[in-house]
């Protein structure tokens, strides 16, 4: 057991910090074109697609180096890269399950954010019970015809491509009749309607597919193999970027300390109030425990081990913590903590950094984490069954199947 960074990692961290200090844009990025250009710069410096194999345009870096970059970016407040869903897990899915043609066609443009990707999994009636999805893909000889509706699609309006789960076989049990496709979002049969979320912003959308076209060459894996493919990719979504996230929490904590120095109660700074101090001491302890747990996961990843069902513990832990964190912060800050500011609209959100904005934005956004990419309840089912080995529940849909 040794939690010191190696000399190589320290040197890498120093180099990254110097690069970020020299290159991070001074002004907020307002347009998609500006964000794409920053992304491109990060990519060329080796800070995007770090874990991807070199043969597909990645950098073949270690999990530790990636964590260091995320950490340094959070520290300096650099705008995140975009296309996070694509690079974080759609690309890795194509690398594992895709054909050579698919790899050549899609991966490089994904890395450089030349093409933006979204995920077409959830439906109005298939969220936690994802396998109950109803979108159909019918074989029309040289292509598939897709009909149905998807929802909670991040980056929908700016996406060029989507990874789609659709039903291709109605006769078999629901988990067994699903296939996975890459879908061109820029076609007449695909309509994207933004949804306004509780923060007042529209960062995700509904996607309607009416006789949309999915090419045969864009089927991932074999027909009806979609569920298994989705399982491997959800693991990626739940694992990474724990250090960058905790660094953001820590920056927010120091802002909270500054705010409680300025705000007064009974003529004294709030920070001197013993009740406030006890709450803040507990909050910081919990925050640090998230960091320790993140280091533990990172040390496993760094040995080249794949994230297993244990990644559900990480996801459950930080998302539930994040709710407690901002609940306590707003409790301490009172009306001051509830202010929102108008901000530039940008149609993509990186779930690891959340929405930019005020304490109130962070508080509202914290409700998202325990729902997206498998709700806390689903994570607890996974932990119970696959980590603790508890018996599966008797389920009505399993009885029928």
């Amino acid at each position: 057991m040794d939690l010191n960074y190696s000399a190589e990692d320290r040197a890498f961290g120093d180099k990254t910090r110097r690069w970020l200090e020299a290159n991070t844009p001074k002004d907020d990025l307002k347009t998609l074109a500006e964000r794409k250009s920053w992304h491109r710069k990060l990519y060329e410096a080796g800070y995007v697609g770090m874990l991807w194999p070199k043969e597909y345009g990645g950098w073949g870096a270690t999990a530790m180096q990636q964590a260091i970059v995320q950490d340094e970016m959070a520290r300096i407040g650099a705008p995140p890269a975009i296309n996070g869903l694509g690079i974080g897990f759609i690309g890795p899915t194509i690398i594992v399950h895709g054909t050579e043609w698919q790899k050549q066609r899609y991966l490089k443009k994904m890395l450089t954010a030349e093409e933006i990707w979204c995920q077409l999994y959830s439906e109005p009636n298939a969220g936690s019970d994802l396998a109950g999805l109803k979108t159909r893909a019918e074989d029309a000889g040289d292509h598939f015809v897709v009909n149905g509706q998807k929802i909670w699609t991040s980056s929908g309006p700016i996406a060029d491509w989507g990874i789609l789960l659709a039903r291709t076989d109605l006769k078999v049990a629901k988990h067994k009749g699903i296939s996975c496709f890459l879908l061109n979002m820029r076609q007449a049969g695909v309509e994207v309607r933004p949804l306004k979320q509780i923060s007042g912003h529209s960062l995700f959308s509904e996607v309607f597919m009416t006789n949309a076209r999915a090419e045969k060459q864009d089927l991932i894996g074999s027909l009806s193999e979609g569920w298994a493919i989705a399982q491997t990719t959800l693991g990626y979504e739940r694992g990474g970027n724990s250090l960058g996230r905790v660094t953001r929490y820590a920056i927010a904590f120091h802002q909270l300390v500054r705010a409680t120095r300025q705000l007064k109660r009974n003529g004294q700074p709030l920070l001197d109030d013993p009740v406030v101090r006890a709450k803040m001491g507990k909050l910081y302890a919990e925050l640090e425990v998230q960091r320790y747990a993140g280091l533990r996961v990172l040390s496993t990843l760094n040995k080249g081990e794949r994230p297993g069902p244990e990644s559900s513990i990480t996801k459950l832990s930080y998302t539930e913590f994040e709710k407690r964190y901002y609940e306590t912060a707003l409790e301490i800050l009172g009306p001051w903590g509830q202010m929102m500011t108008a901000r530039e609209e940008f149609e993509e959100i990186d779930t690891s950094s959340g929405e930019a904005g005020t304490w109130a934005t962070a508080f509202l956004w914290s409700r998202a984490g325990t729902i997206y990419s498998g709700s806390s309840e689903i994570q607890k089912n996974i932990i119970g069954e696959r980590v603790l080995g508890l018996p599966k529940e008797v389920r009505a849909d399993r009885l029928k199947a």
Partner: protein
Amino acid sequence: MDFSFTSDQTLLKNSARSFLDEHCKPATARLLWDDPRGESPALWKEMAQLGWLGLSLPEAHGGSGLGMVETALLLEELGRAAYPGPLWPTMLVADAIASHGTDEQKKRWLPAVAGGDARAAVTLLDSDLDWNPDAVSTRADKTPTGWQLSGLKRYVAWGHVADVLLVPARAPEGVSLFLVDPSAAGIGWTPMMNMDPGTRLADLKLDRVPVRGEDRLGAPGAGAPALLSLLRRGAAGAAAEMLGAARRCLDMAVGYAKVREAFGQPIGSFQAIRHKCSDMLLETENSHAAVYYAAWALDAGAEDAATAASIAKSYVGDAARKVCGEAIQVHGGIGFTWEYDLHMYFKRAKALEAQYGDAEYHRELILRHVAA
């Protein structure tokens, strides 16, 4: 960067577990609950032979020279066994002697501790129950041959079996540490009955207790930092012990949920139980991260070592209470009986919450570090 244990560390953990599974069964601990002494001298000797008592002591004095990570691994297993006895206070006092003692003090006590011939206790609370080392009110007055100690020490763990007491007292120079003979004149014990019969506490009254000049530990007035460092180590170790208790309760709850049936199914198939067990695992794994981060930070002399120890103590205290308590809930009525073993771990975790600084004390320390 590696958060996993070395093969030597894993070996230590496994051998501790198999020894305790055999020699410190729940039935063994229960027998000691009814014993006036409360701990087993035979077990003590065996633990000495295994090298546990001298684990962190210098090799020159009969120890193994290992660190806090190894110590935490051992304490986690002892917590898992609800081991009743003075091992941790003895190790802490011996460490303090190794750090601050004279050659004579080291020669007198360290081989004796490592060899299983001496037990020790430390008095951390005075009458106002303040964990802050600066709050010591027991007085140390100079005499022609040394010192004379007067005051009240509260809730002293395992003092009745100790061969030496580490007593902080206020000398004219400031808080100082003394090695006190428990059989000295002027010492009065009032034993108490703790909720956890495996944690033996007593009040200690010192009425002009004579202490020889050479039994002062460290320089006069230098007691507070030494005590703070002992408290830090003590807190991290107690967290490890609470983690062990939590781990045992989680294992028992999950095992029970797999076999106990209700409504024609194992109760572990119900989400109400499964989700509870998942939350318990989450708290246990986070506690593991907190304990071993703190242990490593103490060994490495990391900048945040003090904060990490306080974080481990306050976080794991809450977590272990919750995990052990929820294990009782998963078991239902059987978990509330004296016969069933769960309450042994539940009580041990709870007893440790109030030792080596409670959560409020440590949270204040954390905030002082971060908001300085």
